């Protein structure tokens, strides 16, 4: 990292901001039911693009915001590209394995954590599976993968500015080149995202379930009670008012219900808040540490290392991959812990928290096995959907695009398998 700090505040401030950002991410993801896997699988299962569109908007706004800060000189370019990873076969293979495993397990790395914090036992097992998958990767895969990366076998040999699109396109990391690249990456992503959301909304409207259609009460009042063979009258509970995937206009009562935690956050509100959390980390961590949201892929995987330490087993001493870094509580580990705290707080205050054990015990096994694939996939890909894909869009790299396409392939494959199993 840089020899000088971009800002003169100390590490205490950096830790504090990373902690708050982690809390915000956990809270917002829980309240908005934000799941990358769910957003992608909806494309194949229900042909809904509203949440996938939101992901593209998230990537686009992140690229525009970080690129804008660099272009106008608020943050040095080196703090945007310094942690860009190598690129190669492993991004494609890893993202494919990750997409498959996460879909089978029932959650991406973000939703795994906030659902685990909301009491989902299946996601606890996914997390443990991910820890085991990380160990399998470290021992069985990393030495070979590392060899290919070092020797440039289907891999670039350097990251950082070599993987930085402004440099790749303009051979410059000056403000103007970063600005133009940010616009070239961000604007199309936001435009495609908005288009996909509008397309989904138009489709729903054409089917009579559009944004202006009433959802509560009137639509089901007549047919449902007569046809409900279970004898359970509609109206006995609290109406959900408006699902967060519904793209209609948000009214004052909706805002009030969101603040009072009676209603999930709308998907685009969640997207905006998550982008703000990324910016908080990007700015405050510049010059100090990895200034992006890393979430679970490395830190979550390292939890096994922390768990084994009291038993006298120290993976950092002799195990490949683990021995590349010290097992310390750095700002990103704190961020992951605070993400869990944020999700737990949100689920508890909203009444969503409950220890949930699936009725079908095989789901626990699938969650664990899927978690192992998640652990292997994210480590092979050098990061998860947050620390690699979303982050790389904000870094103005191109690995995020490779990850996105390959992950979509993995999700599609898992949907096909699930359709045969159901």
């Amino acid at each position, binding site marked *: 990292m840089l020899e000088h700090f971009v800002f003169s505040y100390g590490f205490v401030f950096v830790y504090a901001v990373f902690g708050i950002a982690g809390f915000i991410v956990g809270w917002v993801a829980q309240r908005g*039911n934000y*799941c990358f896997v*769910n957003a992608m699988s*909806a494309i194949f*299962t*229900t*042909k*809904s693009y*509203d*949440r996938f569109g939101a992901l593209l908007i998230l990537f686009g706004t992140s690229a525009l915001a970080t690129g804008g800060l660099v272009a106008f000189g608020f943050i040095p370019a080196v703090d945007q590209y310094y942690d860009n990873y190598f690129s190669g076969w492993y991004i494609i293979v890893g993202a494919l394995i990750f997409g498959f495993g996460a879909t089978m397990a029932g959650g991406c790395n973000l939703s795994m954590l906030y659902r685990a914090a909301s009491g989902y036992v299946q996601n606890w097992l996914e997390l443990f599976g991910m820890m085991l998958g990380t160990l399998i990767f470290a021992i069985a895969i990393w030495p070979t993968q590392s060899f290919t990366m070092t020797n440039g076998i289907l891999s670039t040999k350097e990251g950082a500015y070599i993987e930085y699109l402004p440099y790749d396109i303009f051979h410059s990391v000056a403000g103007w080149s970063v600005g133009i690249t940010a616009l070239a990456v961000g604007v199309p992503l936001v435009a495609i995202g908005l288009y996909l959301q509008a397309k989904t909304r138009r*489709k*729903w409207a054409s*089917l*009579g*379930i559009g944004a202006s259609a009433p*959802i*509560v*009460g009137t*639509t*089901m009042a007549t*047919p*449902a009670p007569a*046809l*409900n063979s*279970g004898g*359970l009258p*509609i*109206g*006995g*509970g*609290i*109406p*959900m008012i408006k*699902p*967060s*995937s*519904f793209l209609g206009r948000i009214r004052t009562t909706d805002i009030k219900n969101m603040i009072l935690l009676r209603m*999930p956050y709308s998907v685009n509100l969640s997207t905006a808040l998550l982008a703000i959390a990324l910016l908080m980390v990007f700015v405050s961590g510049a010059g100090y540490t990895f200034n992006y949201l890393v979430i679970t892929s490395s830190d979550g995987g390292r939890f096994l290392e922390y768990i084994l330490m009291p038993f006298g087993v120290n993976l950092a001493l002799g195990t490949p991959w683990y021995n590349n870094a010290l097992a310390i509580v750095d700002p990103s580990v704190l961020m992951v812990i605070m993400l869990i705290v944020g999700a737990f707080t949100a689920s508890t205050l909203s009444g*969503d928290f*409950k220890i*949930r054990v699936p009725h079908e015990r095989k789901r626990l096994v699938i969650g664990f096995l899927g978690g192992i694939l998640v652990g292997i996939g994210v480590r092979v890909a050098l990061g998860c959907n947050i620390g690699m894909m979303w982050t790389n869009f904000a870094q103005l790299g191109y690995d995020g695009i490779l990850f996105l396409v390959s992950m979509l392939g993995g999700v599609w494959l898992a949907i096909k398998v*699930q*359709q045969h199993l*159901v």
Partner: protein
Amino acid sequence: MTVAKRLKNLEPGKVIEVLTDHQPAADVTLPALANGLGYQFYAERSGDLYRVYITKQ
């Protein structure tokens, strides 16, 4: 996916009732399924559970 399969075999005009404690299913997955198929739905919270009704049209 189970609900989608059940809906496929359901007669038009009939309502399927889904009981779940998985909030994202009531908030995201099932409304998206119903919206995508053009079916009306209604979701309510009842204690720890969510009841989602989808009318096949």
